């Protein structure tokens, strides 16, 4: 027969865990919604930014726009920027994005590796890869400030030709049930990247560029990169929280199941104890009566 106090202790522990997982579920739901709102705002910004960039690109011939950001793929190092979470308990979120990153990194020989997120950094170190740069804090509080910091760093490396290609490996948020790890090229920007931009010829008149087209484009390109990174860290954050939401929902469900079965067990044990006691009392009284 199982010990009733042990079972009660177990039940208590499961109940507490359930409370935590349920709280985490609610928290990640609200965080996910917040990130999704920000993705929306940024999309408007990016759409219009792209339209203006396309306008400049389509007006210029290859030779006219001598810009370091566009159409340049000379053999330099590749930079891989891997985005993971700082905390665990989010299902397969981190390992999925990490596996994709490892696959890409192997294809490129020895690229420069940047890691955003503690989990990713830990996983790289355990594989014997020391990231050339690592940050954390983004998954808890993704901000435009961080996006700017990272964007400036990347643009700088690219501008001084330390790297010639920049890829970001992150998790794309499809919907709350589906998140898929993807590898996206950030730099160089290619003309064909802008092929899908819905482009309305809104300037019927001659456009004046202040101070000139070249400067305007040079200022736009880093901003575009920063906007892209902002989108990417927001998507990652939404994905992370969606993954955590699912994981925590499952954990809560499992805890509910365990609570039900433990309660049943406790009840049957208690019943058994009572039955035994009654039998003993009955037996004792019979013996007394006989005497």
């Amino acid at each position, binding site marked *: 027969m199982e010990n009733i106090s042990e079972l009660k202790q177990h039940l208590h522990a499961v109940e507490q865990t359930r409370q935590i997982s349920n709280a985490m579920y609610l928290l990640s739901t609200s965080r996910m919604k917040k990130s999704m709102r*920000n993705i929306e705002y940024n999309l408007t910004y990016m759409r219009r930014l792209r339209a*203006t960039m396309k306008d400049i690109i389509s007006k210029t011939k290859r030779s006219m726009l001598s810009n370091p950001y566009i159409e340049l793929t000379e053999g330099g190092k590749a930079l891989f920027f891997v985005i993971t979470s700082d905390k665990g308990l989010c299902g397969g979120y981190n390992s999925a994005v990490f596996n994709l990153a490892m696959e890409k990194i192997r294809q490129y020989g020895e690229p420069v590796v940047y890691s955003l997120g503690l989990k990713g950094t830990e996983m790289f170190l355990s594989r014997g890869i020391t990231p050339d740069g690592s940050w954390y804090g983004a998954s808890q509080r993704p901000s*435009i400030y961080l996006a700017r910091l990272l964007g400036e760093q990347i643009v700088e490396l690219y501008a001084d030709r330390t790297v010639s290609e920049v890829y970001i490996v992150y998790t794309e948020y499809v919907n709350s049930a589906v998140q898929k790890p993807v590898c996206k090229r950030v730099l160089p920007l290619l003309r064909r990247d802008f092929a899908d931009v819905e482009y309305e010829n*809104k300037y019927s008149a001659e456009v004046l*560029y*202040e*101070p000139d087209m070249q400067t*305007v484009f040079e200022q736009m390109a880093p901003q575009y990169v920063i906007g892209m990174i902002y989108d990417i860290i927001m998507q990652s954050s939404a994905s992370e929280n969606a993954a955590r939401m699912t994981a925590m929902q499952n954990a809560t469900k499992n805890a509910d199941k365990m609570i039900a079965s433990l309660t049943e067990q406790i009840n049957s044990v208690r019943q058994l104890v009572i039955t035994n006691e009654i039998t003993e009392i009955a037996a004792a009284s019979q013996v007394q009566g006989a005497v």
Partner: protein
Amino acid sequence: MDEFLLEIITPEKQFFKGMVQQITCQTSDGELGILKGHQTMVAALEIGQISIKAEGEWKTAFISVGFMEVRRDEVVIFTQTCEWPEEIDAARAEEAKKRALDHIKHAQNIKEHRKNEISLARAMARLKVKNSRKPNM
């Protein structure tokens, strides 16, 4: 007075949308004023302030790097951050200013120097907007 539509968009939010009479902002060539019917133009904006005249009143906000699309009856400004004076955290800006000044003194190379100059410009512009609630025009 003739009005035109002004929109200020940042990655985080739509900062402003409404009819205005005039705006003044800073480009690399200096201050630039826009009225209704301006020639179509795309201008790169510097870190600094933007003044908006709406309903006869001037308002000033802090703006970081960005650019502006001007059409005859509409102006769209794209920027990373844009803040009203009341949204600016003066203590943080003050701290950023000190840090940037300190870093500039100890900068090892031109790149580092330039980067901190930008941070300094940002902090100074924030403080300027915060401290001068009334635009000086």
